[in-house]
């Protein structure tokens, strides 16, 4: 029974990137690439993690995939490691193309690299690191799901995630400035302002699909009287799918362009919009690849920025958001930065009724979109949504206690939660914290009204 299910699992979803990549593989190439990665890029951590794991299964309950698949052990963190890296090590790299296809699907679409399991393993074994090694091997073998590979290509050619052309970017900023000036006269989106206090950075999808977020940020910045700027050159985008496919070299190039831009503008610090993975890339992984222990310029996430503005009285609450809200803690800024209390402080200030979902804070369940999983695109959408049934249950429980709106300060979480809410018919609304602040803050005299 389990056997046949195991066979079905890989044959069900056909992804062009995986199929065509695997078609070009020879066993010699596989062995060489695996050998190179293991030899040149891994060491004590991999060895210790593999040899210290006592096969206790205590990490299982940490993983939403496992919980959502009726506790199927193949979806447990160590179970996924067993099917991938243990096998690779045991076979000393002598695995075939079918194995690589399967390993690729597991590493890219059955783990969000959310690091929740590292908080449940008694040894603190970082399964997300082990899965990243598998992704790195797949990437070097040219076996990467097509959609996310395309996104990484966009990064490589344009230095942004969404094939946004240089003039389109500037146009978007001017356009949003014009729009927002209708509401607040004298509003500016200062482009290329040397020596500004803050470089405000966003991810590629903002100018592409969610430009109202730039509008809202501009309103918040102007209201708070912040001395800020945005660059007119590539280097404005902080997102990073290269990090997730294991294309570390390109991740390094992206982050270098990014920090170089900040230095060119001589800003004091970088504030980034409500995105989680981008924060991980700038604060945790990309800087390390470039040899910076910590980012060369202070970087703060929007949550921390809003918190500061509110504490300093630069933004004020005009009215409270009426509907009951719950807060979804994104992995990359909560397990990745501990911003959960600040987020609650701001949320509670602007809302009438706050309802915790359970578990919450650093123990929150993942949205199942992060780690590049949602970026693997439509072929894996159903699998992704079904792999997070536990999230739907958690949200439903919050809803039954009065939560109508979910605040999720992360783009990936937004996408993931939208799909979950839709698929499971939860009928909840999802907002960024910035949406709420924009709606409920005191604004300068409005012309429109």
């Amino acid at each position, binding site marked *: 029974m389990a056997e046949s299910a195991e066979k079905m699992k890989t044959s069900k979803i056909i992804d062009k990137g995986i199929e065509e990549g695997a078609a070009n593989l020879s066993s010699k190439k596989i062995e060489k690439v695996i050998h190179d990665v293991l030899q040149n890029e891994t060491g004590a951590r991999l060895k210790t993690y593999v040899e210290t794991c006592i096969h206790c299964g205590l990490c299982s309950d940490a993983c939403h995939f496992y919980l959502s698949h009726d506790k199927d052990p193949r979806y447990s963190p160590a179970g996924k490691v067993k099917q991938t890296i243990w096998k690779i090590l045991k076979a000393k790299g002598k695995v075939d193309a079918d194995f690589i296809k399967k390993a690729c699907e597991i590493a890219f679409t059955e783990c969000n690299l959310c690091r929740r399991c590292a908080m449940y393993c008694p040894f603190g074994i970082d399964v997300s690191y082990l899965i990243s090694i598998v992704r790195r091997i797949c990437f070097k073998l040219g076996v990467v799901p097509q959609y996310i590979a395309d996104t990484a290509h966009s990064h490589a050619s344009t230095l942004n995630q969404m094939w946004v052309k240089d003039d389109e970017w500037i146009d978007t900023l001017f356009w949003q400035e014009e729009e927002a000036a209708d509401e607040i006269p004298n509003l500016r989106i200062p482009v290329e302002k040397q020596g500004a206090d803050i470089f405000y950075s966003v991810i590629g999808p903002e100018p592409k699909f969610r430009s109202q977020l730039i509008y809202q940020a501009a309103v918040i910045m102007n209201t708070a009287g912040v001395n800020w700027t945005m660059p007119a050159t590539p280097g404005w985008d902080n997102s990073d799918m290269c990090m997730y496919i294991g294309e570390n070299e390109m991740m390094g190039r992206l982050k270098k362009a990014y920090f170089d831009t900040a230095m060119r503008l001589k800003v004091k610090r970088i504030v980034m919009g409500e995105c989680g993975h981008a924060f991980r890339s700038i604060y945790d992984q990309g800087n390390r690849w470039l040899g910076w222990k910590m980012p060369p310029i202070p970087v703060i996430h929007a949550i921390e920025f809003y918190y500061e503005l509110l504490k300093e009285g630069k933004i004020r609450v005009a009215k409270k958001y009426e509907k009951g809200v719950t807060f979804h803690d994104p992995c990359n800024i909560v397990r990745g*930065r501990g911003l959960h209390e600040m987020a609650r402080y701001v949320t509670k200030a602007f809302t009438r009724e706050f309802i915790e979902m359970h578990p919450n804070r650093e*123990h929150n369940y993942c949205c199942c979109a992060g780690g590049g999983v949602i970026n693997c695109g439509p072929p894996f959408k159903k699998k992704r949504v079904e792999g997070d049934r536990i999230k739907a249950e958690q949200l439903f429980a919050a809803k039954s206690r009065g939560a109508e709106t979910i605040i999720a300060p992360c783009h990936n979480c937004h996408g993931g939660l939208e799909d979950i809410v839709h698929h499971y018919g939860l009928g909840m609304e999802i907002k960024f914290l910035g949406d709420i602040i924009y709606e409920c803050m005191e604004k300068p005299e409005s012309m429109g009204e």
Partner: protein
Amino acid sequence: MHEIYKFVSGPLVWLAFIIFVGGSLYRLISMAILAKKKDGLVYEYFSLKYAFRSIYHWLIPFCSRNSQQHPWLTLVTFAFHVSLIFTPLFLLAHIILIKESWDISWWFLPEGMADFLTIVVIAGCVFLGIRRIVRPEVRYLTNTSDFIILALVGLPFITGFWSFHQWPGSTFMGILHIFSGEVLLVMIPFTRLSHMIFFPFTRGYIGSEFGAVRNVKDW
């Protein structure tokens, strides 16, 4: 029989301890060198403060959310590990042997207590073995070596209990006891039992990453 006894309780003891200590040091030092060469970031980010914070929260039962979610397992594994380390160190019979050889001694466990702790270890092995079979998520990860390791741990305690109570064949069991204890010691550095020596480092490292860099708890 006497010759064998003399051998296992004399030269072999020395050998076992030398391999245990030497092997553990070798594993730790070679890992430290490898880390320096290939994972320099482990040193960069290691923070004693947060390492200890993490180790503390994971050594004390019911501090971590995971240990609260599995109360029985937490109780058993805690009792099991404590008894496993405590009993041989404070067993009267062991202390007498050491006193005879080197004329040093220390506090020892009352007899009934020692018996109880030994049973805890044996029962713990049985519990963990059964858990490996009945829990699907554990069975999936388990291979033969996991059972062998449990047997290795259980054997010195079973045989020790047997010979102490002078049950039939206790001389043989006594020899087996010493021998299996030596095998266990020797195996620690070279099998998954090395989780004992690596625990502070894996835990400490992730504790440092979570605490010092990411400003968040890891339990």
